[in-house]
């Protein structure tokens, strides 16, 4: 059912579960390194392979990082809590149970304010808890890449035991037609918050931040929530938005056709933006949670927690407000920088000496366009804020105009060196030599007698075509302002 029609008939209730891989040096319960991309099964030991007799010991840095996330999300911190075992058999889970937390999360009852279309939506946080990641299965052969129908499967346990923080919202009602945008804004805000704390690199494309999206619908006017579905492992912010939208459309169609929603997990398909059924909760496993007897309870010292709270960095919302004031930009501009994940980059560029307006113009214009073309996140372009600031300085100093500056950026992105090296190598300085410029102008005036006559006759607007001719003849290197002055002077016209 089309989205608008779905929203006329139903109201959505959202819920989001976010998994964040922490950037600790070692795994959650052993000393193995956590670096991404190592050859398979090289970051493993008796503990994370679950060899007989091996025991876990909890990573204190991971506990601290989780508490800091909880504090940044305005949560209460448990004075005493335990890990729990979540029991189920799966080949990529070495112990066939996951050490997680069940009814005693480390952090609980918080909130995160997010902004959508200038309006603040408070998303309440149910819990933040700590657990371990599983290994990674690759299913070889078969059509779907899933385990069913595969010829064989191989498992890489490098990821097994990497600390994972799970952040669970309370149900979010009342978002109405903005549900997809609220979901995305929450994801964006959370990513920035986690990154600001320095506890994870939150690289979504490497899976270090992933979302499970819960959606249910209720008929307009009803106050009783409908049955929800859980779309697993949605791996980009854009996908979060699309998954919510797609699931609202799908559920609305089912309900409008007299069907009922089955409580189940669903898979999201990047290509179509739709979801397909996974495992039904009705045949779901009984995880047989019980307190993990191999680990002593966690009892964070309240004085230490207070210290952590006092030393939290400025949180993203407050920081955006401050930067917006300092930069003097509109709400809309700030929001679009936020959505484009450009705030850090602009801030660093300003810190390197660029005027805020110029820094924003380049990141949100030329560079955003190029990132989009290359299909990479803005922050992964091969250019630094310092380099952008240098280009801005050259433009301000008159050495470059915008057109030349774009060519410099292109050169830097191509790996041709620093902005100065690109300018030198490509010969991109503005033509400031009056003699050379004068010669070019004479040539242009000679070839455009009609336009020259019009200007002489008082139609000063016609000078634009002549300036354009000069720019073209100089291959963009002329200073357009100076060229205009000289043309008018030569034609004996004054403004």
């Amino acid at each position, binding site marked *: 059912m089309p989205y608008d029609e779905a929203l006329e008939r139903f109201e959505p209730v959202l819920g989001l579960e976010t998994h964040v891989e922490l950037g600790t040096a070692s795994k959650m319960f052993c000393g193995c390194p956590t670096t991404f991309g190592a050859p398979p099964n090289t970051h493993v030991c008796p503990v994370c*392979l*679950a*060899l007989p007799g091996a*025991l876990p*010991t909890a990573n204190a840095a991971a506990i601290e990082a989780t508490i800091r996330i909880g504090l940044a999300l305005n949560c209460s911190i448990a004075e005493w809590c335990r890990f729990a*075992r979540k029991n189920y*058999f799966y080949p990529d889970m070495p112990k066939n*149970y996951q050490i997680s937390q069940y009814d005693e999360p480390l952090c609980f009852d918080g909130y995160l304010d997010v902004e959508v279309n200038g309006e603040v939506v408070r998303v309440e946080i149910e819990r933040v808890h700590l657990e371990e990641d599983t290994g990674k299965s690759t299913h070889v052969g078969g059509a779907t890449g899933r385990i069913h129908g595969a010829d064989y499967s191989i498992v890489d346990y490098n990821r097994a035991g990497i600390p994972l923080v799970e952040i669970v919202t309370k149900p979010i009602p009342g978002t109405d037609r903005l549900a997809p945008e609220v979901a995305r804004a929450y994801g964006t805000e959370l990513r920035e918050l986690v990154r600001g704390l320095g506890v994870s690199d939150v690289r979504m494309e490497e899976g270090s931040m992933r979302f499970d999206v819960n959606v249910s619908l209720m008929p307009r006017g009803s106050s009783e929530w409908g049955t929800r579905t859980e779309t697993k492992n949605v791996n980009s912010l854009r996908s979060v938005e699309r998954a919510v939208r797609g699931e609202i459309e799908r559920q609305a169609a089912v309900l409008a056709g007299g069907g009922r929603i089955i409580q189940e997990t669903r898979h999201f398909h990047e290509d179509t933006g739709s979801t397909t059924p996974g495992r039904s909760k009705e045949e779901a496993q*009984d995880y047989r949670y019980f307190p993990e007897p191999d680990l*002593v309870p966690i009892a964070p010292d309240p004085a230490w927690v207070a210290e952590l709270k006092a030393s939290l960095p400025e949180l993203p919302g407050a920081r955006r407000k401050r930067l917006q004031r300092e930069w003097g930009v509109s709400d809309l501009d700030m929001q679009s920088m936020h959505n484009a994940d450009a705030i850090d980059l602009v801030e660093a560029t300003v810190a390197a000496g660029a005027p805020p307006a110029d820094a924003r113009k380049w990141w949100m214009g030329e560079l955003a366009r190029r990132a989009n073309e290359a299909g990479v996140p803005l922050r992964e372009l091969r250019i630094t804020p310092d380099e952008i600031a240098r280009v801005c300085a050259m433009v301000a100093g008159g050495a470059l105009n915008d057109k030349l500056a774009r060519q410099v950026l292109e050169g830097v992105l191509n790996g041709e060196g620093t902005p100065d090296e690109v300018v030198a190598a490509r010969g991109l300085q503005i033509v400031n030599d009056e003699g050379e410029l004068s010669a070019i102008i004479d040539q242009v005036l000679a070839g455009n007698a009609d336009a020259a006559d019009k200007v002489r006759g008082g139609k000063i607007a016609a000078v634009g075509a002549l300036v354009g001719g000069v720019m073209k003849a100089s291959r963009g290197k002329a200073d357009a302002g100076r060229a205009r002055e000289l043309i008018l002077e030569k034609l004996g016209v004054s403004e």
Partner: protein
Amino acid sequence: MSLTHKTAAELGALIASGEVSAVEVAQAHLDRIAAVEPQVNAFLHVDAETTLEQARTVDARRAAGERLGPLAGVPIAHKDVFTTADMPTTAGSKILEGWRPPYDATVTRRLREAGLVILGKTNLDEFAMGSSTENSAYGPTRNPWDLSRIPGGSSGGSSAAVAAYEAPLSTGTDTGGSIRQPAAVTGIVGMKPTYGGSSRYGLIAFASSLDTPGPFARNVMDAALLQEAFSGHDPLDSTSIDAPVPSVVEAARQGDVAGLRIGVVKEFGGEGYQPGVLARFHETVELLESLGAKVVEVSCPSFTVALPAYYLIAPSECSSNLARFDAMRYGLRVGDDGTRSAEEVMALTRAAGFGPEVKRRIILGTYALSSGYYDAYYGQAQKVRTLIARDFEAAFGQVDVLVSPTTPTTAFPIGERADDPMAMYLADLCTIPANMAGNAAISVPCGLADEDGLPVGLQIMAPVLGDDRCYRVAAAVENALESRWGGALLSKAPAL
């Protein structure tokens, strides 16, 4: 006296003084093993060359002038649930047949560093689940006192090896009595240290909140020397206690009970207990009184429900602990013929690899943890556990140690209880409370039952981290009884 019949302390001194070499001592024990193993079957793995190589290393370290501990060069047998980097480790199960661990358990490693020489790995009830060693996938071990009887369990290979003079020392694990009960029925000393006092790292888990590594020896001092050699905080075990522990060797040397308050647990005795066991127990209590101890009766009402609570908690934990045996990374793999799913291979492997008692407990534990049953079973059992700890606490407000028979009966015949799990479980009636509360407890020989001439054990229970009290009282009992008997109780055992 032959080298195999000396105490560990004596052997350590002889090797230290250079009168004998570690190699000679190891060879004497290997010869004894070769001679009596066909009757006893205490070992699952013996590898003379690996053993002699270790002994040669100790001799070389000593020759190089290295200062070594009191047990350097003394042989030891490890229960086959401790991982050993140079020997296979099976936990008595088919599912781990031939598995060679890439690492040493902390207990193994510390004893290796202290210079003890590993003779081999001893038999046990599969995954330490049982009280008779009949649940081993590799055949039962026999009691050296009477080869038709069980050596106790689950650490029956370790108790039999020491009682049969195949090893002066051995390690065991005690989850519900698996050290104390085998020690009692083979006439030797067995100690369950305070939970957290000895590291579980590298011990193949049965029930994590209960499993406790501990020593077997033929006398109290040897047990203390062994415990001291492997104890102490281990950063690899989160539940390991990081606190100073009183010296158990010093306590074993003291061996005096004058002025000590001793509580007799009222709930342990009477119906279901063998008369000869009760007779020796009461005599020993009188002996303690005659040595200057003040004896009172203490009631611990919750101890009577310790056994059923234990049989919910231990299986619950084991159902999760044993999930890792899934044919994916190590051990047995059944049915992997290219047509079956991973799930089917897991199921076929576990069906073929686990014995009936292990399956019984996995099913029991899976059920007890299930949604809708958790509160009624696992939750209730944890409450009982709290009550037991409170009973101990109250008791230790009145007395310094508690005593009881270690087991209700002497060693029973092989096969007698094999088909009756409830009867088998009752063997641990008196030992389970100390596991549930994490206390220290020891079993020391206190005589032979009149009706069958088989050994009886006295259990001495002390508070958490009160291990020294166990040794102090056990040493006093041992001194007094050995002077009465004219030697160790074990000297009355028939020669093999």
